[in-house]
């Protein structure tokens, strides 16, 4: 086969390393934080561009790709701290928690814990809680909407069943994360400044509907009851757990369960032969 002379300028230098060694060392060099660790022998490379320049392009692509993957999962954190600071946190996280597989959408679960107390974030005590809330939103957004409440079914009073939406979760936080996230994503500095960070523990039911990720505030008793049901407990056991906690009088618990759960959109109450009794939808 004729070879264009310009193309044929192969130097055919002996390989310095086996392919396995080359790949291992290049991966290490691409992720190194210090200049010394980033260097590879100049004799490894040929061509018009210096090897260090090519490595710089690949390093930017690798670290930028990881940072952008985290940005997709943690949009409120990104908006709150700004792109450059987010990249700093993301790059440091990536260097110690690299993905093991190419589907980056499911990578980065430890990011919330990693950025808790990250240097420079002392004035954002809720950063970890906000990241956990971002991750919960992202996880639910990837679920298929369940408009038929095809998830957990719980027998209630012998004759009835509670049918919960698939993927329904209870999220609790020490900070008002829903209000924080909404204000941050809306770029509403006034609303953000007005949020009372000491408002106490917040509970939410979260699920995926056709319109997107849905959120409903829950009272503490309703959250405890629902969490116990979703963990596989019976209605009776869940109720006993909530009452034993003794945080609310029985009448208040009953009212909360009626309002926060039996009338919620994430539940359908039906007889065992599936006749709908109202509620939910």
């Amino acid at each position, binding site marked *: 086969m004729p070879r*264009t002379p*310009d193309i044929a300028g192969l130097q*055919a230098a002996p390989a310095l390393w086996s392919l396995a060694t*080359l*790949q*291992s060392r290049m991966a290490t060099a691409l992720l190194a934080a210090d200049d010394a660790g980033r260097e590879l022998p100049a004799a490894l490379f040929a061509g*018009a561009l210096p090897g260090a320049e090519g490595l710089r*392009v690949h390093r930017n692509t690798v670290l930028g790709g990881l940072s952008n993957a985290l940005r997709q999962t943690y949009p409120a954190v990104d908006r709150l701290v700004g792109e450059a600071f987010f990249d700093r946190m993301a790059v440091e996280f990536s260097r110690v928690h690299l993905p093991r597989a*190419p589907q980056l*959408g499911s990578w980065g679960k430890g990011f919330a814990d990693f950025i808790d107390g990250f240097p420079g974030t002392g004035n954002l005590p809720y950063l970890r809680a906000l990241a956990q809330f971002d991750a919960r939103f992202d996880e639910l957004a990837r679920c298929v909407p369940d408009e038929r409440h095809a998830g957990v079914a719980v027998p209630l009073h012998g004759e009835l069943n509670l049918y919960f939406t698939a993927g329904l979760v209870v999220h609790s936080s020490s900070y008002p994360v829903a209000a924080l996230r909404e204000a941050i994503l809306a770029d509403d500095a006034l609303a953000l400044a007005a949020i009372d960070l000491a408002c106490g523990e917040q509970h939410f039911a979260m699920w995926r509907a056709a319109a997107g990720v849905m959120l409903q505030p829950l009272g503490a008793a309703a959250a405890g009851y629902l969490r116990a049901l979703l963990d596989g407990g019976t209605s009776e056991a869940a109720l006993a757990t909530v009452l034993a906690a003794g945080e609310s009088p029985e009448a208040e618990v009953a009212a909360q369960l009626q309002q926060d759960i039996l009338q919620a959109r994430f539940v359908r109450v039906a007889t065992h032969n599936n006749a709908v009794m109202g509620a939910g939808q």
Partner: protein
Amino acid sequence: MTRLSDSSPIPARAGIGLRLPHQSMVATERPAAAWFEVHPENYMADEAALVELEQVRAHYPLSLHAVGLSLGSAAGVDLAHVARLRALSERLAPGLISDHLSWSMANGQFLPDLLPLPYTGEALAIVCRNVEQVQQALGRRLLIENPSTYLCYAAADMTEAEFLAAVVQRTGCGVLLDINNIYVSARNQRRDAHEVLMHWSQALDRRSVGEMHLAGHAVVATADGAELRIDDHGDRVCADVWSLYEAAIADFGVLPTLLEWDTRLPDFTVLQDEAQRAQHLQDDFTLMARARTGRVDFRNPGHAAHA
């Protein structure tokens, strides 16, 4: 869930790379497009997006363009990832499946980039082993794309084109010829892109090329002020790449051609506009080819071209 038993072949027309921000609109409004291509890794942990993609697939031919097989990894391919790709393939029945002549896994970790291989005999054996393993697991032929390169290894027994031609010859895989990547790599190595393309057409069996890619790229300066082209898929296709594409059609014929756009994603109509430009070049070539063989009346070319 829609289950598709037959794969629709990808037409020899200009298709569009489908990205998640456009997907809902495409699923509901069904805009004009000959076919779509997606990155399967974006759907492996996102059931909601996958269900929506099935709605798209019900109305358009679809190609899966993987970025995570790491066909050049000395440690071998990740069989769990291959199984995920196979599951997607069974669900979506794509017309084509492709990945790159590159590596991205090392030390048990994934680096989101298409890292370059040295074109040596050792690397050739490894790539062939990996490609054969993937093709066997998928039960079908892969297309392998030439990546953009920013590094050249001193140890090289063959050119990139010769290397890929050897992989094709040994494994029976096909080639996805990325015209923008040929241009970017050539310019970064201070070579003439048309000469490089000529070398590709000499090295490859024309029948092995099953698809072409087009994309925009960025031009930046290195630390010492030299020109550096970055394949960022963030702009319209530049004039030089359109010219190279015309030459590639002349060399390899009219093939399924994809318009890729990944960063700074514009309105979908911009992608349609770019795809239409590629389609016009394909149509012009077909028309001229028919004229040369006497199958068209130039007094009424449009009618004949679509006959």
